[in-house]
C-alpha cells in the first residue's frame, strides 16, 4: 500500500466515525409548525331523532343466574319472577344406598349473588317451592313461556333477607319421586326423566318486595344421609325463570332498557352520516343520557341494580332475542358517572359503512345479556330536552383542502 493510500485510510476511518456520530444527533421539534397546513380536530354534534322502541321475548333458561321474587318498581313496573330448577340424574348414590330410603332427605341449596338484589334490602322475602306440572326446557325457555305448578302440594319453603346461601328442605314425597327416576335403570330412563320429571318452581309469596339472583353453577340439590352423615350433591341440570312485568310507568321522554330485551331501541343514523363521507373521521360515538332524576324516589332501604354499560348490535337476524342476548355485540358503551352518559364508539361501523361493504342501517341499542340477573336502565329518548337528546358526535381531522 502506498503512503498516499495509507494516509487516505487514516483520514477516512475517523471521518466516517465522525459522520456517524454527527448524524446520530437529531432532535426533531416544532420549529416552523405555524407554517404547516396541518389537520385540525373538529367535533360535530348531531341529535338523533329516528328512534323507535323495540320489545322482544328474551331467553331466560340456562343463564348464569335465575331471577326470582316479586318487586313493584315505581318506574320499571310490577315484576313477578318464578324460577324453575331440575336436578341432574347423572350423579350416583353411594354404593348400595338408595335415595328413597328413610335415612335420606333432600335439600335445595341456593347460592346467591349476594351483591345483587333489587328491592327491599331489609325485609325478608318468603318463597314457596312447588312441583312444576308444565313441560319446559331451559334452552328454549323465554320470559313468557308457559309455567304451571301444583300449588296444592308444597314441596318446601324458605325465606331470604341478605343471606349468601339459602338451604331449603324438600318434602320426602318429592324426594321419593325424584328417587324413582334416579333409580330407574331402564335403557330409556334418561329420556323418561327428561320428559316426565318437571322439577321445582320457586314462587315468591305476594308482597315479597325483592328480587334475588341464585347463581346456578354453585347452587345444587343435596341428598343427606341423616344417620351416617354423608351428603351426595346433585347439580342443577336445567333451569330458567318466567317473568311477568306490568304497570311500567315511563314518561314519553325516556325509554326503558331491560337486559331481558323486553326494552330496546332501534336507531337509524343513515341520514346523519351521509354528510361526513368526505371527512377524515377519527371517532364517532353515540351518546345516551341516563334519566337519573327519574330513577330517584325509591323507598328507604330499597335498591335498584346499576347498569354499567349498554350495547349496540346491527341488523336483525332470524331470532333477534337470541342475537341480542348471546351474539357478539358490535360495540358497547360504558357508563360515565360524571354526566350519566353512555357513549358507544361506532367508529368501526361508520368506517365500514363509508369505505367498506357495510349496508345495514338498523342499530339496536340495549342491555341484552346472557347473565340472567334482571337489570334495567332508563335513558332519554328523542322527546327529551335538547341537552339530553341522544347524540351522534363525529370527531374529524379537517385538512386545509376541505
Amino acid at each position, binding site marked *: *500500500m502506498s*503512503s*498516499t*493510500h495509507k*494516509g*487516505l*485510510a487514516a483520514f*477516512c476511518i475517523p*471521518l466516517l466515525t465522525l*459522520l456517524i456520530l*454527527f*448524524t*446520530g*444527533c*437529531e*432532535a*426533531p*421539534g*416544532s*420549529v*416552523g*409548525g*405555524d*407554517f*404547516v397546513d*396541518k*389537520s*385540525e*380536530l*373538529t*367535533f360535530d354534534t348531531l341529535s338523533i331523532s329516528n328512534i323507535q322502541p323495540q320489545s322482544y321475548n328474551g331467553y331466560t333458561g340456562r343463564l348464569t343466574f335465575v331471577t326470582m321474587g316479586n318487586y313493584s318498581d315505581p318506574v320499571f313496573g310490577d315484576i313477578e319472577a318464578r324460577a324453575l330448577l331440575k336436578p341432574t340424574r347423572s350423579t350416583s348414590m353411594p354404593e348400595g344406598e338408595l335415595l328413597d330410603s328413610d335415612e335420606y332427605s333432600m335439600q335445595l341449596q341456593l347460592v346467591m349473588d349476594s351483591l345483587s338484589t333489587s328491592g327491599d334490602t331489609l325485609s325478608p322475602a318468603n318463597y314457596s317451592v312447588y312441583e312444576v306440572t308444565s313441560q319446559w326446557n331451559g334452552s328454549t325457555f323465554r320470559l313468557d313461556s308457559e309455567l304451571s305448578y301444583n300449588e296444592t302440594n308444597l314441596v318446601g319453603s324458605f325465606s331470604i333477607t341478605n343471606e349468601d346461601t339459602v338451604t331449603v328442605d324438600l318434602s320426602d314425597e318429592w324426594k321419593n319421586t325424584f328417587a324413582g327416576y334416579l333409580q330407574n335403570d331402564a335403557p330409556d330412563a334418561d329420556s323418561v326423566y327428561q320428559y316426565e320429571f318437571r322439577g321445582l318452581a320457586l314462587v315468591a309469596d305476594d308482597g315479597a318486595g325483592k328480587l334475588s339472583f341464585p347463581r346456578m353453577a354453585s347452587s345444587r340439590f343435596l341428598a343427606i344421609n341423616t344417620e351416617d352423615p354423608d351428603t351426595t350433591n346433585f347439580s342443577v341440570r336445567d333451569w330458567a325463570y318466567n317473568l311477568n312485568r306490568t304497570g311500567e310507568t315511563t314518561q314519553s321522554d325516556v325509554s326503558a332498557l331491560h337486559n331481558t330485551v323486553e326494552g330496546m331501541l332501534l336507531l337509524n343514523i343513515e341520514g346523519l352520516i351521509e354528510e361526513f363521507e*368526505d*371527512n*377524515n373521521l*377519527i*371517532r364517532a*360515538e353515540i351518546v345516551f343520557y341516563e334519566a337519573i332524576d327519574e330513577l330517584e324516589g325509591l323507598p328507604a332501604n330499597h335498591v335498584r341494580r346499576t347498569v354499567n354499560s349498554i350495547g349496540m348490535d346491527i341488523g336483525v337476524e332470524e331470532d333477534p332475542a337470541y342475537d341480542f342476548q348471546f351474539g357478539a355485540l358490535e360495540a358497547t358503551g360504558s357508563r360515565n358517572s*360524571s354526566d350519566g352518559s353512555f357513549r358507544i*364508539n361506532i*367508529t*368501526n361501523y361508520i*368506517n*365500514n359503512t363509508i*369505505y*367498506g*361493504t357495510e349496508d345495514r342501517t338498523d342499530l339496536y341499542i340495549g342491555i341484552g345479556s346472557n347473565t340472567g340477573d334482571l337489570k334495567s336502565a332508563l335513558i332519554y329518548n328523542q322527546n327529551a330536552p335538547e341537552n339530553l337528546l341522544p347524540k351522534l*358526535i363525529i*370527531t374529524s*381531522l379537517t*385538512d386545509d*383542502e376541505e
Partner: protein
Amino acid sequence: MEIFKTIIIILVLGLASQQALAQQGISENNNGSFYSLFGLGQPFDNNTARENGLGILGVSLDNLQSNTLQNPAMWGKNLYSTASSGFRISQFTAEDQTRESINALLESTNLQFTFPLYNQKLGLSASLYPVTKSNFRVFSTNSEIPAAGDTVNYISDIKGSGGVNKLEVGLGWNINRNIAVGYAPSLAFITKNNTETTFFQQSGYGTNNLDRKITGLALAHRFGTLLSFGGLFNSNDRLSIGAAVALPIEFDAKREISVTKDISNQEQEVLLRDPEQGTVKLPVELNAGLTYYPSSLVNISVEGQLQKWSEFESELNPSDELLMSDRYRMGLGAEYHPYRLNSTSFLSNFRYSGGLSYDTGHLTIDNRDIDTFWMSLGLGVLSRSASTIDLSFQYGLRGTNSNMLVREKIWTFSLSINLTERMFVRPKLN
C-alpha cells in the same frame, strides 16, 4: 487501488442500507430543511462534491475525466466512460425565536453514466437525479375542548418526502476545440408525499395516518454549450464559458388524499375524496459561468443561476404560487492541483478547493427572501487511474428567525465517487 475499491464498496453498502432503512421508516436520519415544506420541495442542487467544494454550479468547469450534470455540452468532450454517484449527509439546526430543532439527513445524490461514443467528440449521458426534494419534519402539539371538562390532546407528526426527479438521456457534441453543445431530454416525474400522523393522548382515538400525494409526469428538455479559449494572457492559460438552460416543465399532476382506516378489522388505505387533477409548472432555469485556468495548477470559477420561480404554477395548490420568487444564485471558487507538481509530499497528493456562494432562495415569505449563504471547502482524492473521490464540507445559513420565520444552520458533508474506464476501445497491440 485496492483500498480505493474497498472504501467505495463500504460507502456504497452503507448508503444502500441507510436508504433502505429510511424507506422503511426505521432510520431517523431522513429529515432535512424545513423550507422543503413549500411547493414541490426545495430545489436540489445536483452538484458533485467537487463542485460543492468550489461553491459553484459547475456549468463552466471543463473536465475531461469526471462527470457533471450541469452542462450537457461537456459530455461530448469525455475521453473515458464514467460512472458516478455519491451522497450527502447534512445536519439542519432550525430555530425560530423560541424553539430549536435538529434534523439530520442522509441522502443519495445523482446517479450518472457517460460513454464517449466518439472519443472527445460525441458523448452520451444517462442519469437519474432529483430536481426538488421535500424532507421536512415538524411536530405540532394541539388540544381541543369538545365539551366542558373534556380536553382532547393530540400531536401531529408531519413529514415530507419525495419531490421531482428526472430520468435523463442526453448527448454532447464537441464541435471543435472551441465550441461544444449538448441536449438532454428527460422524463420528469413528481412523487411527493406529505404524511401526517396524528397521535392522541386519550384512549378511544386511534392513531391517524393521512397522506397527501402528488404524482405527475412530463417531458423535459435541457440544452448546454461550452466555449473554450486558450492563450489569452499567457501560453498556458485557458478560459471556459459555459451556459445551460432547462426549459419549463409542465406536469399533468394528480393529488390524492388517502387515510389509513380500520375496515372490517383490517387496516386499509382509502381515498378520502376523489383525486384532483391539475397542471403544475416548474419554471425555466438558466445557468452560466466562466472558469479561468491561469495554469494547470489553478482554476478560478464564477458562475450564476436564475430559476424563474415567480412563474411557478400549481393548480393543485395555488396558494404556493404566492410564496415563490425568482431564485438567483452566485458562486465563486478556486481549485488548486498540487498533485500535478510531482511532489512526494503527502499533502501534494490531493486536490484542494474553496468557495463561497449566495442564493436568494425561491421563497419569499412575509416579504423576506429565504436566502442561503454557503462557505465551502473541498478535497479531491485521486487514484492512479482517472477515478476520483471528492469530498466537500459546507456550512450554510438559511433564512431568518425574524417575523416568526425559521433560520437554519446547515452542515453538509458530500462525497462523490467518480469511476472512469476506457471502454469499447480496441487495443492496437495484443
